């Protein structure tokens, strides 16, 4: 399906990542945003609140992140594409509703413009320290989809991707930005509406009475309905059967949670996205994501000048993690170097998949600014031996 031109600001713009994310949401057809101000994400909702009365839709500034993170679920069940936007402390408050979104299989987008933590941390400065929280932050077992943009243009493009994936898999999708991409201004090209693909909601074709809210299609995703269409359906955060009714049993838990997890795992091949460069024959592969991938590129070029064979694997979709690819590469390269703006998160995934067949080096950074490319360069040289 093509984008609704009403929300598409076609043209070349000079925008920061936050503003670009808002435009991406509008282009994707998002017509409901609930949010609570928090640096460095606030510009997204500021722009949305200014744009939406002229596009047609709703913005509401809720009383906190708890309410924002569930108001968007209510809106989604009314059939409207919805999003909330936050940063560290707010993201922590949203965790319970990420679980609810997973459990109710509600399409929606959560944007986290990462800043330094823990706690209030560095409100105006970047980090990438919420990557594991995005994966594991809510209680219980589940899988999510998380995307990591590295420029304002990608903030635009990938917000659309996030909405599309959330519709395709009936799941919350995270756009894991950071303060650096959020506040950096670059050229953003917004294509005409008829060049933007948007995934429509997967509404059931069955009539009321025949429809079961959690009976999955072949790809393990159940078709959806919306409130007001006569289905008189029930959804609950309790463990439930295909009818959506609570069933407190180990069997039902197994069926449901297994499917929720498999829904992403089985389709992972279609969801995973990464960009490789000069991987073949590389002695060292730098695995990076988000803004750090750009900074790492500079380090990679320095090392290449010194004659080191360095490849780059940039994770575009971070969750689900490209396990298979890392396993393959572990047999071919000497070492992985993983720079990230935290003290070690995605590096553990790389290490797990490398399983001792390639050395894994972390280039940690506490956040507050990006890495100095020099530090990544040094680690590449060390890894190259």
């Amino acid at each position, binding site marked *: 399906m093509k984008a609704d031109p009403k929300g598409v600001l076609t043209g070349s713009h*000079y925008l920061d990542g936050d503003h670009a994310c808002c435009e991406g949401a509008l282009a994707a057809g998002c017509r409901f945003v609930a949010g609570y101000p928090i640096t460095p994400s606030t510009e997204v909702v500021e722009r949305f609140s200014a744009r939406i009365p002229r596009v047609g839709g709703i913005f509401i500034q809720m009383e906190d992140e708890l309410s924002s993170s569930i108001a968007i679920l209510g809106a989604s069940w009314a059939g409207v594409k919805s999003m909330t936007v936050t940063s560290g402390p707010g993201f922590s408050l949203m965790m319970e509703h990420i679980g609810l979104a997973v459990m109710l299989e509600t399409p929606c987008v959560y944007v986290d413009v990462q800043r330094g933590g823990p706690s209030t941390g560095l409100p105006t400065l970047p980090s990438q320290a919420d990557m594991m929280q995005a994966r594991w932050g809510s209680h219980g077992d589940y899988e999510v989809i998380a995307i990591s943009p590295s420029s304002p243009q990608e903030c635009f493009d990938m917000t659309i991707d996030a909405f599309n994936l959330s519709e395709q898999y009936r799941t919350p999708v995270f756009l894991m930005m950071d*303060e650096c991409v959020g506040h*950096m*201004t*670059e*050229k953003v090209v917004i294509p005409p509406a008829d060049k933007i693909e948007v995934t429509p909601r997967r509404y059931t074709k069955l009539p009321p009475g025949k429809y079961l809210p959690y009976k999955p299609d072949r790809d393990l995703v159940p078709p959806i309905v919306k409130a007001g269409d006569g289905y008189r359906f029930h959804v609950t955060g309790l463990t439930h059967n295909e009818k959506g009714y609570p069933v407190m049993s180990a069997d039902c838990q197994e069926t449901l949670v297994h499917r929720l997890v498999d829904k992403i795992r089985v389709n992972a091949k279609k969801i995973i996205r990464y960009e490789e460069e000069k991987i073949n024959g590389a002695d060292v592969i730098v695995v990076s994501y988000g803004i750090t991938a750009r*900074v790492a590129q500079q380090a990679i070029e320095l090392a290449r000048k010194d004659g080191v064979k360095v490849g780059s694997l940039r994770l575009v979709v971070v969750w689900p993690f490209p396990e298979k690819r890392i396993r393959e590469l572990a047999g071919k390269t000497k070492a992985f170097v993983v720079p990230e703006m935290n003290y070690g998160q995605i590096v553990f995934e790389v290490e797990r998949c490398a399983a001792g067949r390639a050395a894994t080096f972390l280039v940690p950074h506490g956040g507050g600014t990006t890495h100095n490319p020099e530090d990544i360069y040094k680690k590449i040289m060390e890894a190259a031996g």
Partner: protein
Amino acid sequence: MSRTEIKIGGFGGQGVILTALIIGKAASLFEGRESTMTQSFGPEARGGACSAQIVVSDMKVRYPYVTVPNVLVVMSQEAYTRFEPQLDENGILLIEEDLVKSGPTRGKIRAFSIPATRFAEELGRKIVLNIVMLGFFTSVTKLVDADAVRKAIRDTVPKGTEELNLKAFEKGYEYGLNKLKEEKKKLG
């Protein structure tokens, strides 16, 4: 030069960010080059100080921040004191001369000053001081094409103020050209 780093410093209300935005936009949208603009949101953005940075490049900008500016534009004493030591020793220093008392220059730094506030006042709006500085920047550094900057000004400033801003731009631009001539004479 494939990567040029520019830093602009002043205090809040002078239009520091807007100036950076216009430079970045001129390069990115009207010249077909790449540029990345960042602003200080950190604690240094408090207390009235304000700064913005632009990286202009013919290739994709990777590292987004400015570390050793090739051009420094200062519109406050504080910005001068704070950022001058960071300036590349082959760099260009542009000074608002009524607001900044500068010391001797280091290395091969070329310094140029302009009474931008006075010029802006003569044009009737002190607020266009930043655009006078922008004109000055454009002619002295030649980093960004003047027509691209003019387009970016039209595209950025509030409706109805385009003519005033363009006048301010030309004022600074002309003054810069003269300064370059003076420099040439001096160097023989």
